């Protein structure tokens, strides 16, 4: 009220008498307060990074000083002191009369040199002047002045004289300098040595002292033309992460809390330099924000790309490495991609860059030859009832639907022209026990589980098998079909990835007997179905189209149908507002779990991207309601697979960096990409170690060294024509291995892909090479033979038909000429362990030295080449 009264009173006062002082006072006070507040806010509240930087530099200084102390402790002070003493001793000699005389002499001679030079110059100038005068006279009068001519001759002599003097004095100077050098050189080299020993340490101290004056400023990385906006315009990206995370690149900053700590995977930063590439392309978040909450996206709920936490960061690899399956520094990524390809997501879902992935299931055009109607019906109804580890998901078909689909499949099956290559009953006469032995030695169990032999499955660690378990196959398949199938799988199914193991008739019969002995012991309900009605058949066809069975299986009548489900290419950017959670209750936002199932089986999920995806992967029909029918079948993923698939889904986005920011060598990468997809498809890594992946088969062996070889370096190792022939029809290289390299019946295109892939892994390019024209060096052949014998190579290696001496567990060296690349043998001999850790092949040249130093002057390279040439000459005799 008083304020009102004040203004009323003021109003009543005459204008001339009104005072503004109080108003000014109040306003200026307000102005002062707001300015103070603004300054405080500007300096500290809104700039937490300033404090971070101060603290960082304190910590960094501490680290540097500790490192300095450590370096200092490592310096041999006694040695340095001895050097210093030596310097002091040498410096004493500088006091000697001899040195003093020499320095005086040097000064004198240098002065003499200057004098001599001056004389020479004067003489030359005079000569030039005289010459000008002589010429001038000659031109103006037409008469040559003899006096001047004589003078010129005289001057030439004096030039030559002073030049001689100059050279003489110069020699003297050099001589005296050399004499002085005897005193000084030693001091110089000693001083240099001290600097060399202490310089690094001193530099650390200098760095430590510099931290106190380090500028407190925003650090930003600007990436021009980094990406495109949703409207297709090119835009830049600015990352200021390193304003707080100052120590990301600093090796010393370990064992310190964030934001000061160094990056946990420095080897990744070598190829993704944050100074050029920033941080958000991998970690996401809001690059230009300068407070943790906004930069990480926890406080800004409208920021579309919050920071990726924990292992989720590997989702970013796909932004540029969408071509690759295996990444050296991304185990999580590699596992996830393998799962994604193996479980067959792209059978139904469209995805950029995955149109060449082959369907994962068998064709269904000749079912009657393989299985019974009853079995097919039960399988369609619930595949996991027969095989708990199958990749085939459960579509939850009712009896009616299952019957209809069976009807369609058997209708086209009856039209099939498939006929076994063998007369009925050919399979008979095998012995199941023998069959089991063969099954377990030739390599069948590297993909197929039978009974309790689940070691390979455990080594793979997946909830699904990549080939059917055969524990109950005796009740599913018939002997005639199995015999025809294992003799030549491509006969029944030209596209199958099941290889032939080149079984003899007897071996095949034993295996058929073994498989037929594995019966399904569970009792089944009797079923009574009718598959002949045309109405059923039509309904079956409709159901197959509706549920997209042809995504994984080749089925006659569906050759032209496209993928039935949603495009996943931009799924990582899908907002939770676009997701329907059906009747599933919500978990609180701060809950640690995305998905919870209580004792009563009631499920709750977080209502966000993670919650929806986790729920969907647990049960694809979780969010189904009475009105919203979902057709995606139910998989049986394990926890790890759900994580893997979630990572992949998170990674598929269309807002990728522009090519400038992606890695170079696209051709090599595309070769690797195609190869890796093929490797996943044919399950090469189930048996082989390839790019540090796989080798699961070894788990089923008592002696892992009896497993298939590592093939990562195959591109550098073997001749391309040999590889081509070997893959077409494998011949034993390591006869002591019982497991067989199967015949895969690769197409020419696939063979090409594999060859290029191996070469790309070894960073080599495909080139036409005439290996046959390789000429051994005739001169060193005797040396090669001598070393070959002295090294006793045939203690382990075979040589054609000759039985090896002791171990005989190494490849036949007579194959080398046609199999191995000439340069490979030398590389291999250098250090076998470096190429193939754990190999039985010992190194003969430890530390690059030969045990036979007298040969070829001890030149290790020449010796290795001599061995190689001897190997390439073995077949000549």
């Amino acid at each position: 009220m008083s304020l009102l009264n004040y203004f009323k009173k003021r109003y009543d006062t005459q204008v001339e008498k009104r005072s503004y002082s109080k108003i000014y006072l109040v306003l200026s006070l307000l102005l002062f307060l707001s300015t103070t507040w603004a300054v405080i806010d500007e300096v500290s509240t809104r700039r937490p990074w300033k404090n971070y930087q101060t603290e960082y530099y304190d910590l960094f200084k501490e680290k540097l000083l500790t490192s300095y102390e450590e370096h200092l402790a490592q310096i041999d002070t006694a040695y340095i002191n001895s050097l210093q003493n030596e310097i002091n001793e040498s410096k004493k000699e500088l006091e000697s009369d001899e040195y003093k005389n020499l320095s005086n002499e040097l000064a004198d001679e240098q002065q003499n040199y200057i004098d001599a030079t001056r004389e020479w110059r004067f003489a030359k100038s005079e000569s030039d002047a005289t010459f000008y005068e002589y010429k001038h006279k000659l031109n103006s009068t037409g008469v040559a002045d003899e006096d001047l001519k004589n003078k010129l001759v005289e001057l030439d002599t004096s030039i030559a004289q002073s030049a001689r003097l100059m050279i003489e004095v110069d020699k003297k100077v050099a001589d005296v300098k050399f004499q002085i050098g005897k005193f000084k050189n030693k001091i110089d080299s000693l001083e240099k040595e001290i600097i060399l020993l202490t310089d690094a340490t001193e530099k650390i101290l200098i760095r430590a002292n510099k931290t106190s004056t380090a500028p407190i400023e925003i650090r930003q990385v600007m990436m021009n033309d980094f990406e495109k906006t949703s409207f297709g315009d090119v835009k830049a990206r600015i990352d200021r992460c390193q304003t707080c995370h100052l120590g990301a690149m600093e090796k010393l900053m370990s064992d310190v809390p964030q934001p000061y700590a160094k990056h946990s995977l420095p080897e990744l930063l070598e190829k993704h330099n944050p100074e050029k590439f920033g941080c958000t392309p991998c970690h996401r978040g809001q690059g230009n924000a300068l407070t943790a909450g906004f930069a990480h996206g926890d406080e800004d709920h409208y920021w579309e790309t919050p920071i990726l936490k924990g292992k989720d960061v590997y989702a970013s690899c796909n932004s540029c490495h969408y071509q690759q399956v295996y990444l050296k520094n991304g185990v999580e990524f590699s596992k996830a991609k393998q799962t994604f390809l193996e479980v067959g997501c792209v059978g139904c879902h469209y995805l950029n860059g995955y149109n060449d992935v082959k369907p994962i299931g068998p064709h269904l055009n000749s079912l009657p030859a393989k299985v019974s109607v009853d079995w097919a019906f039960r399988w369609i109804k619930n595949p996991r009832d027969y095989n708990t580890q199958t990749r085939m998901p459960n579509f939850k078909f009712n009896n009616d639907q299952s019957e209809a689909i069976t009807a369609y499949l058997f209708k086209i099956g009856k039209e099939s022209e498939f006929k076994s290559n063998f007369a009925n009953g050919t399979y008979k006469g095998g012995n199941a026990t023998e069959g089991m032995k063969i099954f377990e030695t030739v390599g069948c169990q590297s993909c197929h589980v039978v009974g309790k032999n689940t070691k390979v499955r455990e080594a793979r660690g997946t909830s699904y098998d990549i080939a059917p378990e055969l524990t109950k196959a005796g009740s599913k398949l018939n002997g005639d079909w199995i015999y025809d199938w294992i003799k030549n799988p491509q006969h029944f199914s030209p596209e199958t990835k099941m290889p032939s193991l080149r079984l003899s008739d007897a071996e095949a019969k034993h295996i058929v007997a073994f498989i037929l002995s594995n019966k399904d012991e569970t009792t089944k309900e009797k079923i009574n179905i009718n598959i002949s009605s045309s109405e059923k058949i039509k309904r079956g066809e409709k159901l197959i189209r509706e549920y997209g069975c042809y995504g994984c299986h080749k089925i006659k009548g569906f050759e032209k149908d496209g993928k039935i489900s949603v495009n996943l290419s931009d799924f990582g950017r899908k907002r939770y507002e676009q997701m329907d959670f059906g009747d599933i209750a919500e978990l609180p936002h701060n809950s640690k779990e995305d998905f919870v199932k209580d004792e009563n089986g009631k499920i709750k999920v977080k209502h966000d991207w993670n919650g929806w995806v986790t729920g969907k992967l647990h049960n694809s029909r979780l969010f189904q309601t009475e009105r919203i029918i979902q057709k995606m079948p139910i998989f049986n993923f394990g926890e790890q697979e759900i994580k893997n698939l979630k990572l992949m889904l998170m990674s598929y986005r269309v807002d990728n960096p522009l090519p400038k920011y992606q890695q170079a060598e696209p051709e090599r990468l595309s070769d690797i990409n195609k190869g890796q997809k093929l490797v996943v498809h044919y399950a090469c890594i189930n048996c082989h170690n390839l790019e540090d992946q796989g080798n699961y088969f070894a788990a089923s062996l008592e002696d892992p060294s009896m497993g298939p070889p590592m093939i990562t370096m195959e591109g550098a190792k073997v001749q391309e024509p040999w590889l081509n022939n070997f893959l077409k029809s494998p011949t034993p290289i390591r006869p002591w291995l019982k497991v067989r390299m199967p015949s895969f019946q690769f197409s020419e295109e696939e063979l090409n892909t594999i060859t290029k892939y191996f070469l790309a892994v070894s960073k080599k390019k495909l080139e036409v090479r005439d290996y046959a024209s390789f000429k051994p060096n005739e001169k060193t052949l005797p040396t090669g033979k001598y070393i070959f014998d002295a090294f006793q190579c045939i203690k382990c290696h075979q040589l054609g038909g000759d039985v090896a001496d002791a171990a005989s567990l190494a490849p036949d060296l007579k194959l080398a000429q046609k199999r191995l690349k000439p340069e490979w043998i030398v590389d291999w001999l250098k250090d076998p362990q470096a190429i193939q850790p754990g190999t039985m092949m010992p190194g003969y040249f430890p530390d690059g030295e030969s045990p036979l130093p007298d040969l070829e002057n001890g030149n290790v390279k020449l010796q290795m080449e001599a061995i190689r040439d001897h190997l390439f000459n073995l077949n000549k005799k």
Partner: protein
Amino acid sequence: MSKILSIIVLICFAKLSAGDVTGKISFAGVAPKPVLIRMDADKVCKGSHSSQIVSEEVVVNSNKTLKNVFVYVKSGLTQKFTAPSTSVILDQKGCEYSPHVFGIQVGQELLVTNSDATLHNVHGLGKKNPQFNTAQPLKGMKLKKKFDKSEVMMKLKCEVHNWMNTYAGVVDNPFFDVSDANGSFSLKNVPAGTYTIEAWHEKFGVKEIKVTVTDKGTTADFAF
């Protein structure tokens, strides 16, 4: 064995009180049948022996004790020990490793020699230390190695002669020994204190004992 004992370095002198830990490795079970080694595959190997060779995997002494048991101070030591400058020698003679079990300190030099006129290779199958595999095709060749990390036990084998293997106990202190033909061992001059001592046998696994060492020494007997 004397060579092995000789590498035990005496670190603790008069200032600290120290004592020896001695003991025996008794064996209660039935001695398994000797496993014969056939060296027919390599004439040099076969020719270097006049009698039948048996595997050294389990050697039960006449006094019912076990040979080739590696005993060492597993934990309880707080000091750090520098490696001695002497080398541990591992010889390949008659296509057998001698010794069959040995101890070596972290950073100490292992000298592998080949006394046979045949090809041997030493393949160190370290799990903590890096693997190595070097050939010694000539008689008299020498190979020097050092190990950076303690590892009990590290197997070494010869790929040429599959019966040849040896075990190295790489430890970061000088208190280790291998039981002898009487089944006894002795850890010399262990500083006074309480320690966990472990005994390792190739076939029968490991046993642990806690001991308190005084300057009078202590006994620690193991039973397998």
